[in-house]
């Protein structure tokens, strides 16, 4: 998924930090910035240092390729298009454990599964050597 942000938001872009480059990579394309994202991404208004009005304009100016953007209050979430289906077999006890854990975290079972698999893969010890969204391994 690519998030395209006009270059007038250079100050905002400077506040986005991912030194590992595993979650997203920012490319300066002169009149705009391209953020290439591995998985979902979200922005908080306070972290970007914008007023509510500026945040609304910022949301409208953002373009997303290969995904969708959604704003709720002071939060913008980007979700990539997910056309592939992964099937996993579970024992009854495993699934009941997962259902209860998802309930506790306030997410659906599918979201919990996806989050667990991706967060471990993106951890330094989990993905061991994964080089980020621009690498084809």
């Amino acid at each position, binding site marked *: *998924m690519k998030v395209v942000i006009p270059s007038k938001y250079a100050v905002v872009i400077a506040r986005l930090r991912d030194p590992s480059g595993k979650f997203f990579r920012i490319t300066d394309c002169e009149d705009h910035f391209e953020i290439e994202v*591995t*998985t979902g991404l979200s922005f908080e208004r306070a972290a970007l240092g914008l007023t509510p009005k500026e945040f609304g304009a910022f949301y409208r100016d953002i373009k997303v390729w*290969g*995904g969708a953007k959604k704003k709720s209050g002071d939060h913008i979430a980007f979700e*990539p*298009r*997910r*056309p*592939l*289906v*992964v*099937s*996993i*077999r*579970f*024992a*009854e*006890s*495993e*699934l*009941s*454990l*997962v259902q*209860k*854990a*998802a309930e*506790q*975290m306030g997410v659906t*079972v*599918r979201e*919990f*599964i*996806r*989050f*667990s*698999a*991706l*967060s*471990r*893969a*993106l951890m330094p010890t*989990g*993905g*061991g*050597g*994964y080089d980020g*969204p621009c690498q*084809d*391994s």
Partner: protein
Amino acid sequence: MDLAKIVEEGALKITFPKEYPSVAEVLGVRGFIVREEGNSYVVLSPTSFSISRTQARLSLADFRKFFKNAKVFGGFKEFEGEREAIHFRPKRPLVMTFKVSVPERKLIEFAARQYLLDVSEYVRMCVTDNAIETFIRAKRQRETGLV
């Protein structure tokens, strides 16, 4: 919600005679539910697990005898690594699907390869670990009065 209560619902159940207290002890330390019922130990686990001969502190002959004597309900047992470990796994009749993007799929495949697992095994490991951690974290927060 108590983890022990969830584990008991449809858990993998292993019973073995009381002549193997070292096995019961090591599984108890690892956090499994271990009970004594008559002349047997009963161990409950929500997911698959392995026990090695050195962990069980048994001789080669005793470890093989333990394998024969251990009864598994709702799952299977098998030797691993030249009979130096036993792997217990539950029957997995339920299928769950989730959607991913192309880069997410590549990332999961990459991570699974690092663990020498297939995608299904890798995702199951991440999910069950994270679920158990969620309960432990919640329990700790309750105990410290943060919730």
